[in-house]
């Protein structure tokens, strides 16, 4: 009786159950509610999930359960291209928007000046030149790649060099060029390849692959899913374009931004891009966050403004976590301003809204955030500009993205 009733409930209720597994917590969203739990690192993820949310999960068919995760730490990519303005920029853009983290990018003509990364690289991406141009790569490329410790290598450059590279680079996967013959970006093939790599990585991770016991769908990276929500944000929030969305997590910080905030030569279908700051987080990356803060000449003033001293770095308290989150906001804004020479410099004086999501929204109040944003604009940009602060307190953005993604599949 109970089994029949359960089956009926599942089949009638054709809604999706959405699950996000982060590095420090997970959240589960039904059509009616959302719950969040800190992970118990003494348990397998699936066991922890079933222990805390088993009743909810059992109400849904495997085909209706959609999972995304950033718990595998994301894939790392090294990009080798011809120029900063085209091949490297295009590949970087596609990689970030596919949820991949980039450890370095190399301009091929100076390849011998770059050191060899010691860490295992999940994927090396090689790109350069339009199809009607060729002979741009030589054996310096294969020599360099041979010294790398990598799992995958993909070539998305000009067609003329493909066959030579195929014979000289071990396990090279060749895909269509991401630069078309008008110098425009072609995203789809590389994006699909990287998304599938992410899937394979999850399947290979002992802890995460068990999640396939409860879902019949592909597990995607969390930033890839959040990216799906961006065009829809203005339907659910009072957000004025252009905006940035900050997701300050335990290990990394993701920034999604309107393309109106950059002077760019990339023409793509979507209006938002993503960048990742790998070592800016308040739990797993706490030490590197503090290290970055100590190097920032304004951080000390910010601490004074927040009425604390550098001793706060040594504290393990709720107050310390709160201050670190405020510091993270400030450091991310610095990274994206002219103050730092990072990959992306945003026109922050044109920004109308700044949206916060992730664990930070459970700790910081609106005024905690606004005081940091105001300090940043006054100190670094010498301006009283005040973008509207929007806090996604109930993970609505992730839910929106996950539902949109589920609908599209």
């Amino acid at each position, binding site marked *: 009786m109970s089994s029949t009733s359960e089956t009926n409930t599942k089949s009638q209720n054709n809604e999706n159950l959405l699950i996000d597994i982060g590095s420090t917590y997970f959240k589960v969203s039904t059509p009616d509610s959302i719950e969040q739990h800190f992970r118990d690192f003494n348990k397998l993820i699936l066991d922890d999930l079933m222990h805390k949310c088993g009743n909810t999960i059992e109400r849904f068919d495997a085909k209706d359960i959609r999972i995304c995760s950033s718990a595998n730490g994301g894939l790392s990519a090294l990009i080798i291209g*011809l120029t900063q303005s085209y091949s490297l920029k295009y590949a970087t853009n596609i990689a970030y928007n596919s949820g991949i983290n980039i450890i370095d990018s190399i301009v091929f*003509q100076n390849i011998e000046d770059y050191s060899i990364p010691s860490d295992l690289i999940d994927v090396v991406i090689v790109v350069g*030149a*339009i199809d*009607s141009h060729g002979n741009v790569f030589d054996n310096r490329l294969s020599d360099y790649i041979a010294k790398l410790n990598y799992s995958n290598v993909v070539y998305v450059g000009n067609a003329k060099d493909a066959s030579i590279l195929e014979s000289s680079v071990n396990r090279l996967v060749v895909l269509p060029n991401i630069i078309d013959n008008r*110098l425009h970006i072609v995203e789809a093939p590389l994006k699909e390849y990287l998304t599938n790599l992410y899937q394979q990585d999850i399947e290979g991770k002992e802890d995460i692959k068990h999640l396939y016991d409860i879902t019949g769908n592909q597990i995607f990276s969390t930033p890839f899913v959040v990216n799906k929500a961006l065009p829809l944000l203005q339907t659910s929030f009072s957000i004025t374009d252009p905006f940035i969305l900050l997701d300050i997590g335990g290990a990394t910080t993701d920034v999604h931004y309107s393309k109106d905030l950059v002077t760019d*030569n990339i023409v793509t279908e979507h209006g938002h891009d993503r960048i990742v700051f790998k070592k800016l987080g308040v739990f797993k990356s706490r030490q590197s966050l503090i290290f970055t803060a100590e190097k920032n000449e304004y951080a000390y003033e910010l601490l004074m403004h927040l009425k604390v001293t550098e001793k706060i770095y040594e504290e393990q308290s709720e107050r310390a976590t709160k201050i670190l989150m405020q510091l993270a906001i400030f450091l991310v804004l610095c990274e994206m301003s002219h103050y730092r020479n990072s990959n992306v410099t945003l026109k922050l004086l044109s920004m109308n809204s700044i949206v916060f999501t992730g664990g930070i929204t459970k700790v910081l109040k609106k005024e905690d955030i606004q005081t940091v944003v105001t300090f940043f604009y006054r100190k670094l940009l010498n301006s009283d500009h005040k973008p509207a602060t929007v806090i996604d307190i109930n993970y609505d953005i992730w839910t929106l993205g996950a539902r949109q993604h589920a609908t599209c599949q």
Partner: protein
Amino acid sequence: MKVVTGVIGNDIHVVANRLMDLSLNARGYEVFNLGVNTYLEEFFDAAVETGAEILLISSLNGEAEGWGREVKLLKAKYKSLDNLTMMIGGNLTVGSGNAEDIVPRFKNYGFDLVCHQVDLNTGLDMLEEYMRENKHS
């Protein structure tokens, strides 16, 4: 023959840029038009990615003066652009200016061909003649 073209710096003279694109296409060039508001580095990078033989920069509000000074320094950083023909045209100074002063100055900046206030077709004739004499001899 491949040509990279566009308007340099903070300059939005798109009509001239479009005319340049049409004229180059009509003369049989393969044109990579980077449009207005293009930085010098993007011009060089486009030449690398396309294998262009010619870089044709246009400027109408004197922006070229500031950017021109950077040409030699920046181009020297590229290892594959030694044979790139560099041309600039338009109104290369603020106000009217004097071609006798401006042309040598821009040649000194590293341009092979300089057309200050020269009619578009005349300028492109000069380019064809230059390419005939210098690149196919």
